[in-house]
């Protein structure tokens, strides 16, 4: 061991689950955050995949009435938003977080706490978006999930044509 190596206290090989969970939640380590980003993306990949499946099932035959037009519109809006902002981007962030510091020989990302904060903001953003299925008073009952298309073109998203929260979630 050379003189300028840090002395790291030995961690016990097996730690209780709560302790390991606490380590993951409070981590500022770029590799762990990278893994969290990728896991987060994979969870939303399944969610977005379920939405795509509902759309394709609706389109299996003409004049199908598996879901109402309102639900179908929500499905493609949420599928688009989910797949771009909660799957594709977190996957890229995850790999970049994990690999780029290793590739350039840095010890961690600059501002590790900000890095951790960014991940948790993304995760909460995803949960908040999906809370729209339950929260808010929608045009068609409980929930006011965005239904104005993930491109969210005005004037369809304007108050005149989307009178409920819809894309404001």
């Amino acid at each position, binding site marked *: 061991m050379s003189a300028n190596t840090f002395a790291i206290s030995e961690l016990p090989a097996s730690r209780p689950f709560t302790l390991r969970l606490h380590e993951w939640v409070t981590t500022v380590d770029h590799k762990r955050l990278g893994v969290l980003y990728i896991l987060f993306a994979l969870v939303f990949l399944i969610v977005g995949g379920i939405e795509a499946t509902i759309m394709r099932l609706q389109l299996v035959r003409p004049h199908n009435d598996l879901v109402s037009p309102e639900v179908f519109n929500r499905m493609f809006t949420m599928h688009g938003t989910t797949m771009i902002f909660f799957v594709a981007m977190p996957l890229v962030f995850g790999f970049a977080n994990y690999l780029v510091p290793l590739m350039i020989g840095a010890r961690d990302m600059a501002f590790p706490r900000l890095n951790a904060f960014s991940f948790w903001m993304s995760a909460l953003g995803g949960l908040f978006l999906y809370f729209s299925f339950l929260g808010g008073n929608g045009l068609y009952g409980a929930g006011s999930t965005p239904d*104005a*298309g993930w491109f969210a073109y005005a*004037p*369809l998203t304007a108050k005149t044509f989307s009178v409920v929260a819809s894309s404001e979630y």
Partner: protein
Amino acid sequence: MSPTNIFDPASTPADSIFGLSIFVLLNVAAVFIVVFALLAYVVVRFRSKRNDDQKEPAQIYGSTQVELAWTVIPVLIVLALFLAAARVIASVQNPPRPPGALEVIVTGHQYWWEYRYPSLNIVTANELHVPLSDPAHPTPTFLSLFSADTNHSFWVPRLAGKTDLIPNHPNQMWIDPHEPGLFLGQCAQYCGTQHAKMLLRVYVQPRDEFDKWVREQQQRSPAGTLSAGQRIFESTACVNCHTVSGTPAKGHFGPDLTHLMSRATIAAGAAPNTSQMLRLWIKNPDAIKPGSKMPAMGLNDQDLDAVTAYLETLR
């Protein structure tokens, strides 16, 4: 063959776009074949051999010839694609306007189409009638596109590329169909709940048939005694949204019903125009097109029959 087949153009703009897409497809197919043939050759020719001498192969640094080739050839390909696309865009956007051209004002509504023929004094909905255009003496139809609410897009694939209808931003497009018949299309810009059933029907008719249609559309409804159905129609909310020319019904929110029975479909192509469907549409529009802006009129069976009978006189 699908009635909305993009590979079966029947009008000049669709035809030039189809020609361009085939040209681009041939170009990229050639690039694909050359690149993958070279790749396959290299993979096979330079695969590892059993008696390999393990020596490093000859290292070549720089080759003006090769570098020129892989710079100049892609530039030429891009230039050819650019020029071809520019020519097609120019020909579609700046067409000649022969004297026989017809002007139609198209207004997109949630979720139906309004057509006005200013030179012929005709207002109709959902079913556009245009004259057949003989390539030797073209009689194209120029469409001015407006929107009353959200964005829509006019897309009849066999006649022209799609063009958006944007509120407060008039757009232009044109068609000159070479074959008669019914051409189908679809609103191509997500515009709200019933975007899916905002269907387009374009009837291309030989000149004499088109003129006959124009004469019928220009006829005023005959003033006669009020039928029971007409009385109900004119004393309920129907008149707030619908127009029947020559009567107090002057609404503009819904389709003009002056010549309703000249149309083959109702609800923007969602249902055939039969008395049964018409009755259902007045009684419960959501049964045909959930989310449409037409309200259920809440009439009793007798009144429903009367209003349906009245609508069936609007020829």
